[in-house]
């Protein structure tokens, strides 16, 4: 018989081995303190918490979770322990809710080993508290009882622990929160929010993944491991030692240098309902609706929807390819069998068997194609409504939304870097959206790639064109004064192609030329990275010099390594490694062959950049199945003046902002 306790009520405990289940609907920290007969907690070793989850007779979770199971063995507790206090706290510094009043009332159940509930308690009436003593188990005349306490503390864990006379309360509370934050950082998913794969043995492990993406990962936390790294294939014909081809993650990963967690937002909370599709007509698929995905804003919903379409296309294509592969291998086996059967040579049986094998193959392939076509139709219909609804940052240059360009007031969630498609997708293009601020630099490969027959000069020009289109996009979607673009063009070779940027005056300065220009720009950006790093590490981001330009910085490097000496190359590598975390990004427009003299020294540089190609090339892999997707750069339609119009407005806004 379950006793439903109210605050202050107690209940006898029939068994020594118990589980205390906690559910709160949001990740919380659970812990327990042990007290002597006077209730005194003698030291930190009397506290079980995520950083030290096991004590004799007591075990708590290692991390914050919406549901906990605390194991208690009263017989195994030290004889000096007379009281076990179960406490809950909201994790701090993780963007979660700031007070218990904002979350569902925590529910606790004390159960026996067979799962039978002994007593339950719902902690109601909490408001500004961030930590609460939920229950206490206590020894009374040799028998154990449970009491519902429900005492909250607005001062949080530190105040709660101090109230139990624990001398090191403050340090311990800080330590617990730090242990929890470490755990949460590993378990919260980056977009796309769909259930991502855990890392798979057959894929290359990602350098950016945390060490915990293994079997022992998270039993209680939401399955939020980041998508696995995506193996890239370099036009299909790359030698295996080419390190740039080994890992080319398309976009979202956690554990990278940039934390996209909204400081005021709890990652696991349910977002408001999206616009829903009208109910489907019987026998027909639902009509697609733009923004039909979860998210806090239309931009976020569209972002999630696009990633959802990306995943759907990846998976439906995987199903199709797998069915076709199977049909082919089965047909081959059956044909072999016919060939090795002596009877088939002397009669018409062999022909009939061969015919049957081919028919089976054709039938299965037809079925698979029908399933694929059904899904492609659905996705195409979805793309037809989603594309026109996309905001500027997600839209192609030919989208009318660009004609109504206004300088934005805030940084968008993501940017379209181009389009992705598969050979089977037949006209269906998925926008390639990456989160802003950029997590890694970009490398526009000016070398020969894919099936393009353009000559080397043409490729270089196309690559710089692509870089200009991308830089223009970044400039256009950031509010004025929040994004600066620097250009290094040592020989001045790109002057004509760079004109769309230089003419309206949207750059931070004229393109740097010559060795002196190179070292000047690199020196300034390196110094900036150093300064910001020092300020952040010193915990004094306000201490930056007055007039410090807080904008994100993008450095476009054309013609690398022309004009670079060893020192400049080292600085460039430093910027690639350390820059993204402090808002300094690289965009290299380069052919690796030109830098071949540096040998493997530059491999880490190329690897750290996202490789894009100026011509369509299938070198990007998705995070789910690892198909090779063909990337198409976001080039401005020939003859369009949209770039000029947009950048003119950007330049005007920059000038008035600078005044």
């Amino acid at each position, binding site marked *: 018989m379950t006793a439903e306790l109210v605050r202050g009520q107690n209940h006898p405990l029939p068994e020594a081995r118990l589980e205390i289940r906690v559910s709160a609907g949001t990740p919380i920290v659970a812990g327990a303190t042990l007290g002597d007969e006077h209730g005194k907690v003698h030291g930190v070793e009397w506290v079980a918490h995520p950083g030290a989850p096991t004590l004799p007779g007591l075990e708590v979770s290692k991390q914050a979770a919406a549901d906990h199971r605390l194991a208690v063995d009263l017989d195994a507790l030290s004889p000096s322990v007379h009281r076990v206090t179960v406490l809950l706290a909201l994790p701090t510094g993780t963007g979660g809710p700031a007070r218990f009043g904002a979350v569902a009332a925590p529910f606790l159940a004390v159960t026996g080993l067979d*799962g039978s509930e002994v007593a339950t308690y719902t902690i109601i009436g909490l408001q500004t508290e961030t930590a609460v003593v939920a229950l206490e188990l206590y020894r009374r005349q040799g028998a154990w009882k449970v009491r519902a306490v429900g005492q909250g503390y607005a001062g949080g864990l530190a105040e709660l622990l101090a109230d139990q006379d624990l001398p090191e309360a403050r340090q311990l509370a800080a330590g617990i929160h730090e242990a929890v934050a470490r755990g949460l950082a590993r378990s919260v998913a980056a977009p796309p929010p769909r259930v991502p794969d855990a890392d798979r043995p057959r894929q290359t492990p990602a350098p950016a993944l945390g060490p915990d993406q293994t079997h022992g990962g998270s039993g209680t936390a939401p399955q939020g491991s980041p998508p696995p790294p995506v193996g890239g294939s370099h036009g299909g014909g790359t030698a295996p030692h080419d390190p740039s081809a080994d890992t080319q993650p398309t976009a979202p990963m956690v554990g990278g240098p940039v934390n996209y967690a909204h400081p005021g937002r709890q990652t696991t909370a349910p977002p408001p309902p999206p616009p829903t599709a009208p109910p489907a007509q019987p026998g027909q698929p639902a009509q697609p609706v733009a923004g039909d995905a979860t998210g806090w804003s239309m931009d976020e919903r569209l972002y999630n929807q696009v990633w959802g379409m990306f995943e759907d296309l990846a998976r439906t294509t995987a199903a199709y390819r797998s069915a076709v592969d199977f049909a082919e291998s089965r047909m081959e086996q059956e044909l072999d069998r016919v060939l090795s059967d002596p009877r088939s040579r002397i009669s018409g049986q062999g022909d009939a068997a061969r015919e049957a094998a081919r028919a089976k193959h054709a039938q299965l392939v037809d079925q698979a194609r029908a399933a694929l076509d059904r899904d492609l139709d659905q996705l195409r219909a979805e793309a037809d409504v989603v594309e026109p609804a996309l905001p500027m940052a997600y839209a192609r240059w030919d989208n009318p939304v660009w004609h109504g360009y206004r300088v934005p007031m805030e940084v968008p969630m993501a940017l379209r870097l181009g389009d992705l498609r598969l050979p089977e997708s037949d006209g269906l293009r998925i926008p390639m959206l990456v989160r802003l601020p950029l997590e890694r630099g970009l490398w526009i490969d000016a070398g020969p790639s894919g099936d393009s027959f353009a000559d080397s000069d043409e490729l270089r020009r196309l690559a710089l064109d692509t870089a200009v289109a991308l830089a223009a996009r970044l400039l256009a979607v950031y509010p004025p004064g929040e994004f600066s673009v620097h250009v290094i063009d040592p020989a001045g070779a790109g002057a004509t192609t760079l004109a769309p940027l230089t003419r309206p005056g949207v750059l931070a300065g004229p393109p740097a030329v010559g060795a002196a220009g190179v070292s000047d720009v690199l020196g300034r950006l390196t110094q900036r990275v150093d300064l910001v790093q020092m300020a952040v590490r010193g915990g004094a981001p306000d201490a930056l010099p007055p007039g410090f330009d807080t904008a994100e910085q993008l450095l476009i490097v054309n013609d690398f390594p022309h004009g670079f000496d060893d020192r400049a190359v080292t600085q460039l590598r430093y910027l690639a490694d350390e820059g993204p975390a402090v808002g300094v990004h690289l965009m290299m427009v380069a052919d690796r062959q030109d830098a071949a003299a540096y040998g493997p020294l530059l491999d880490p540089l190329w690897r750290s950049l996202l490789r894009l190609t100026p011509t369509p090339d299938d070198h990007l892999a998705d995070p789910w199945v690892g198909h090779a997707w063909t990337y198409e750069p976001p080039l401005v339609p020939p003859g369009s003046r949209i770039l000029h119009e947009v950048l003119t407005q950007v330049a005007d806004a920059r000038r008035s902002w600078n005044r």
Partner: protein
Amino acid sequence: MTKGQAISLQKNDGGSLTAVRMGLGWQAAPRRGLFGSRTREIDLDASAVLFADKQPVDVVFFRHLVSDDGSVRHTGDNLVGGVGAGGDDEAILVDLARVPVHIDQIVFTVNSFTGQTFQEVQNAFCRLVDETNGQELARYTLAGGGQYTAQIMAKVHRSGAGWQMTAIGSPANGRTFQDLMPAILPVL
């Protein structure tokens, strides 16, 4: 359901099911021992192996939570088992309408990753739930555990235009589904 029994996954009204959930639950059998290692001890893992014409094509398990085609999804690893309140400790969702055309059987297995035998597991069950309305279609409780570390629970296979589930319940040994392949093949 009993071992070997088969049920059709047609709905009573003639329509066929679109999505089913294979739920697994278990408890560690209470036994005397060192405290602390008890409840964490038994880590059973549910896996689903997708077969096309008796050839394994894809596997959904704790390191590959979604089949490449997206039709079979694992809800995530549970390392400790439940308190036996009847809830599923691990579940595998199968979107029957999206299963690729060449996949004709999906076999569900449970293995003890930590190596204990099923003697130390009690109240293990597998049940099939209509995911669209939460209705339980079939429940199969494992009879007394024995000296084995894995069990082939059930299979869902195409029959005519629809699907059928068959309870299997045959014991096997192995820590992960790879070890079970020889034991699975005879039940296909």
